């Protein structure tokens, strides 16, 4: 089943309190795990996977692009950073 992936991130210039909280936790882990010691920041965004019947033609992709800008993101506080098509919904990495 073709799946269109839309990725949305908080605007780079805005404070991302969620990312900051995660970064703080990683910083604490970094005190005991040296591999994490050089983590300098974390930002948290969103990933949407839109499953479709049939082929993803140019018109469908254009409609999803419009949806990404108008509904899936709010341009005042977020940016759409990626739209791509994959063959199926994502599964866990091996």
């Amino acid at each position, binding site marked *: 089943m073709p799946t269109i992936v839309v990725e949305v991130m*908080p605007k780079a210039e805005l404070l991302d*309190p*969620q990312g900051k*909280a995660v970064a703080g936790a990683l910083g604490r882990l970094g005190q005991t795990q040296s591999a994490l010691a050089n983590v300098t920041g974390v930002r948290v965004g969103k990933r949407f996977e839109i499953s479709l019947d049939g082929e993803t033609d140019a018109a469908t992709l254009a409609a999803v692009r419009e949806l990404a800008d108008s*509904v*899936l993101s*709010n341009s*005042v*506080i977020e940016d759409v950073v990626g739209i791509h098509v994959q063959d199926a919904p994502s599964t866990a990495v091996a």
Partner: protein
Amino acid sequence: MRIGVVTFPGSLDDRDAARAIRLAGADAVALWHGDHDLHGVDALVLPGGFSYGDYLRAGAIASLSPIMTEVIDAANKGMPVLGICNGFQMLTEAHLLDGGLIRNDKGRFICRDQGLRIENNASDWTNGFEANAEIVIPLKNGEGSFMASAETLKALEGEGRIVARYLDNPNGSLNDIAGVTNARGNVVGLMPHPEHAVEAGFGPDTDAAMASGVDGLVFFTSVIARALVGA
């Protein structure tokens, strides 16, 4: 005067808003998010809460509700609309107000009595305040940090569209903004909750007596007074 209060899935303060409207002297009309009918009301309140569990973005899914077609249309024709907290978030998502609200800068949910300065006392919802009146009403949210582009902020400041500013900024809001209005002054969004400070005994503490703060009532009496002038 009949003022509608729209209930969305996850609204919490719809009954409090209706009570505030009645205490101010108007009739409160319960409206439903799934309808396409404003039941002939003269003004609207979008209440606080966590519509749709704040999924997607706070207020985003509610802003696409069936009734929002009528709300947006009425607002654009000049009907007074007050969005409180989640209602403010809906108004920004519906593009009736500029800016957006993000998570509080320290990541905390904040619940406290909040001092504000009313900087625009010309809007439909604030005309009963003295110029630069300082008031105290409750604040309770996790995503109340007001954001806007530098260009939008400049326009809001230049056009006097900042309705209320925090006396002590609790959440990282740009320019201490607690509430804004549109160019026409009929649509107002406010993160703190005027409907929780409308009856002595149940409001914020004041120097005079515990829980005696009723500063929030003026938002509702303002819209009634404006309607009487217009009538």
